[in-house]
C-alpha cells in the first residue's frame, strides 16, 4: 500500500521537473542572446577604457590582453587633461546641451499641447508639416543657415552652435503623442477654474509629462553632446568646441599618435553622458514605453 501511494505521484513530479528545466533553458537562451548583444555594444567602450589605462608600449604590442599588464593610467589622464582643455570641452558640451534643451522644451511643449488639445483651423495640416519636418536632416538647411549666421557675424558663438536645434520637430511629435492621452476633462476643469491655456500647459499638463520630458532630454542631450557635424561648420575657436570637436582638435595636435592619452580624453568626455543616462534611466524607459515611440 505504501509502495502504491509512493508510485502514484511520480509521473506528476517528473513533469513538474521537466517544466522547470524547460523554463530554465529558455531563460538561459534569452540571456545568452542578450549577453551577446550587450558584449557587442559594450566592447568598444571597455576597450577604450582599458586602452586609456595602458602604457604606450603595451597598446601596440602584438600579444593582446584586455587587462593591462602595467598601469599607466595616471600618465595618460594627466597628459590628456594637461595638453587639451578637456574640462573646457565638457563645459561647452553642458552649455550647448542645456541651452538647446531649454529652448526646445519651451517651444515644443506649448506647440505640442496646441496640436494635441486645441481645436483650430489648419491643425491637421500643421501636424502633417511637423511629420514632414521629421524627415529633413540637418544637412539640408545647413548651407543657408551657415550663410545667414555668417552674414550676421554670429559664427564662432554658442548661439551659432545651438540655433539650428531650437525647434525640435521630434520633440513636438513626441509630446503631442504624450499629451493626446491626457484626459480632456481635466483640461476642461482647469478652464472652468479660470486657468489660461498657458497655465494649463505648465501647471497641469507638464507635471504629468515628466517621463516624456526625461526621455526627450536624454535623446536631445546625447545627440548634441555627440554632434560633430554642425559645430565643425560654425566653430573654429578651440575655446567654444563641444566634446567631439575638441577631441578632433586634440587628436590633430601632437598627441595624435598617443592612443593612451587619446582614449583617456575620450573616456573623460563620454563619462558625463553615461552617468546622466544611468541617473535618468527609469524615467527614460517609462517615457519611451508610455508614448509608444520606439
Amino acid at each position, binding site marked *: 500500500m505504501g509502495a502504491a501511494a509512493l508510485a502514484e505521484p511520480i509521473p506528476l513530479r517528473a513533469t513538474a521537473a521537466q517544466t522547470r528545466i524547460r523554463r530554465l533553458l529558455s531563460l538561459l537562451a534569452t540571456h545568452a542572446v542578450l549577453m551577446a548583444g550587450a558584449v557587442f555594444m559594450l566592447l568598444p567602450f571597455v576597450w577604450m577604457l582599458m586602452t586609456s589605462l595602458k602604457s604606450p608600449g603595451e597598446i601596440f604590442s602584438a600579444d593582446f590582453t584586455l587587462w593591462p599588464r602595467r598601469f599607466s593610467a595616471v600618465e595618460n589622464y594627466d597628459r590628456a587633461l594637461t595638453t587639451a582643455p578637456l574640462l573646457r570641452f565638457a563645459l561647452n558640451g553642458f552649455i550647448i546641451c542645456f541651452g538647446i534643451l531649454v529652448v526646445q522644451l519651451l517651444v515644443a511643449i506649448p506647440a505640442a499641447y496646441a496640436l494635441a488639445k486645441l481645436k483650430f483651423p489648419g491643425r491637421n495640416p500643421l501636424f502633417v508639416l511637423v511629420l514632414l519636418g521629421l524627415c529633413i536632416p540637418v544637412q539640408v538647411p545647413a548651407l543657408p543657415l551657415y550663410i545667414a549666421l555668417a552674414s550676421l557675424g554670429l559664427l564662432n558663438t554658442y548661439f551659432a552652435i545651438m540655433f539650428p536645434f531650437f525647434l525640435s520637430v521630434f520633440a513636438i511629435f513626441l509630446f503631442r503623442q504624450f499629451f493626446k492621452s491626457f484626459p480632456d*476633462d481635466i483640461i*476642461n*476643469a482647469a*478652464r472652468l*477654474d*479660470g486657468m489660461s491655456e498657458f497655465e494649463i500647459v505648465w501647471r497641469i499638463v507638464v*507635471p504629468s509629462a515628466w517621463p516624456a520630458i526625461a526621455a526627450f532630454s536624454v535623446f536631445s542631450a546625447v545627440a548634441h553632446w555627440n554632434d560633430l557635424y554642425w559645430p565643425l561648420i560654425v566653430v573654429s575657436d578651440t575655446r567654444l568646441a563641444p566634446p567631439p570637436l575638441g577631441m578632433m582638435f586634440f587628436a590633430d595636435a601632437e598627441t595624435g599618435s598617443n592612443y593612451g592619452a587619446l582614449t583617456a580624453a575620450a573616456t573623460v568626455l563620454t563619462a558625463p553622458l553615461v552617468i546622466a543616462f544611468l541617473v535618468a534611466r527609469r524615467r527614460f524607459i517609462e517615457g519611451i514605453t508610455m508614448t509608444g515611440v520606439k
Partner: protein
Amino acid sequence: MASVELKSIGKSFGSTPVLGGIDLAVADGEFMTLVGPSGCGKTTLIRIIAGIESQDAGAVLIGGSSIDHLRPHERRVAMVFQSYALYPHMSVRGNLSLPLVMSRLRLHERVPLIRLLSSRRRETMHSIEGEVEAVAQQLQLGALLDRRPAQLSGGQRQRVALGRAMVRHPDVFLMDEPLSNLDAKLRVHMRTELAELHQRLGATFIYVTHDQVEAMTMSDRVAMMDAGHILQLGTPTELYGRPANVKVAQFIGSPTINLLPGSVGSNDAVELLGRRLQLAVDLPAGSPLTIGLRPEALTAVPANTAPADAGSLPARLRRRENLGAEHILHFDLPGAALPPVVARAPPELQLPADGHVALTFDPLACHLFDPSGARVEARRAEGSRDPVVVPFRS
C-alpha cells in the same frame, strides 16, 4: 443664485445633429435632472451651459442675462465631471484651493519666484486655506487633505470633486453622472448627501444621469431627453404617473413598464390582446395602440375570478424573484409571443402550483400610446364601475 434658461439650443458635430433646439427653464435653486439613454446629448448640453462647448444655435441665459460671450470661469458655474477630473499631481488641498487661487490671486502672484514679491499673497493664501478647511470639514475630507487623488477611494475622489465645485460658491452646479463610478451602496448614500447638499446650499443644480432612480429620488423636476430633444419635462411624479411618451414610460420605473399590443375596437373601446377593456379613446376604429401597465398595477388573482369591470389577462408564472420586501413575478401570456409580463407582489402571496392565474388591473391604470409613441388620454367606458378585486388568500 440664479436661474438658467436655454433657448432653442442646437448643436451638431460635423454632419451629425446632436441637439435639436432644446428649450428649458430651470428656476433659481431648483434641482433639475436630465435623464435619457446613452448618446442622447445630455453631456453635450451641460458642457454648452458650462461654456466648454459652444452651441451652433440658441442662447444660454443665467440669471436672466445672456452668458454666451463669457468664458467658462466667468459664468459662475461649477461642474463635477463623471471622471472627477482631479488634478493628478496636486494634493487634495491643492485641488480644492486651485479655483480660489485662480480667482483671487493676480497673475504675477501665481508665478513661481515672482510671487514672493507680493505682500498681499500671504494674507489671501491664508484666507483661502481657511475656506478650503471649512469645505473639507463639510465633506469629511479633513484627514485626507495631504493625499494625492491616486491615494483616494472612488467615493473620496467624488467628494473632492464636489468640494472643488463648492469652494467657489457658484450660482449653478452642473453635474455629469457624478455617481456612476461608485458602487451601488455608496451611490445610495451619496444620493442622500447630494440632496441634502442641495438644500443646504440653495444653489441651482443641473444634474445629468442615466439612472432613473437618481432622477426620481433627488430632483424637483426631470427633463427626459432622447436623440437631442426633450421628450417630457415635469416632476418625477408626473413622469412616472403620466408619461407623455412611450420612451419615457419605458425609461422611468423599475422594473420596466409592461408594454402590450392593443387596438381601438368598435365604439371607441380599447382592446388589449383582443379583449375589450372598459376604456374609451377618441381614435378611429382599428388604430393600433401600445398599452403600458406598471408592474404594481397588476394583481394576480385565481383564474376565472377576475372582476367583471377590471381588465384581466390569463397568465402562467415563469419565475419568481425574491427581493425581500417584495417579490417580482414574471409571467408568460399563453398564446401570445410576447416578452414576459412583470408584476410586483407581496412576499406572502401564494400562487397555485400549476402557476395559472389571472392578472387583473384597473383599466384606468393603463397608459395608452399611439404608434408614434405619444400618450393617448382614455376615459372609463360608459356604464362601467370601479372593479372589485378578489385576491388570493395568503
